[in-house]
């Protein structure tokens, strides 16, 4: 299991190389990338801010839950922060497992939970010079 919140460029092949085993028949790599357009507005780039000291343990926790779901500890999740241009990879998730259903489910779980719980915020910058914090999700608080 490997998780990281980083300012560095994410290399997809590098994240994929963190998973895989001779016992596994399936591997999934999910990439989130910065789109050139959002709700009809032309985007010039995205700034990702994070509460890094909290995001790292939350990402580890999410990957741990996905590992149970996949029955596999071959899970990697990397989230980038900082200023990202169009097309840049903001998040990469890799899972390998003996069978494909578990790999698909675990990768999907990680990205959905990232969106619900990871303390990260997007400041979207537009070609017209404006910028805006994207509206987010209220994380479910465990009691």
């Amino acid at each position, binding site marked *: 299991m490997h998780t990281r919140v980083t300012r560095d460029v994410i290399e997809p092949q590098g994240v994929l190389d963190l998973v895989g085993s001779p016992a596994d028949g399936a591997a999934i790599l999910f990439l*989130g990338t910065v789109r050139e357009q959002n709700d009809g507005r032309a985007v010039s780039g995205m700034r*990702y*801010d*994070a*509460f890094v*000291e*909290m*995001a790292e*343990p939350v990402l580890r926790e999410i990957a741990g839950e996905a590992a149970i779901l996949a029955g596999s500890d071959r899970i990697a999740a990397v*989230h980038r922060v900082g200023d990202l241009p169009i097309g840049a990879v*903001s*998040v990469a998730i890799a899972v390998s497992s003996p069978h494909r259903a578990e790999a698909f489910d675990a990768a999907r779980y990680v*990205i959905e939970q*990232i*969106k*619900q*719980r*990871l*303390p*990260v*915020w*997007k*400041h979207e910058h537009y070609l017209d010079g404006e910028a805006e*914090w*994207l*509206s*987010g*999700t*209220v*994380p479910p*608080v*465990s*009691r």
Partner: protein
Amino acid sequence: MRIRLLLFALYRDLTGVSELEIDVHEGSSAAAAVTTLRATDTRFARLPERPVIAVNREYAELDVRLSHGDELALLPPVAGG
């Protein structure tokens, strides 16, 4: 007692502050700390009355009791991915 407050993203922009320390009554809840913060200054009054919070880097309910030296983070709705 003294606690450390962290503000992020929109809350940082609204207040111009990312980090500060405030004094609150012994045994105060996080909600009480937020109320105290919002009363200090018109900038802080722009913050929501009931934000999502993390205490010492874990999500928490607003009625949680704080201790001296706790780190209370006010978190806008999250938008990772």
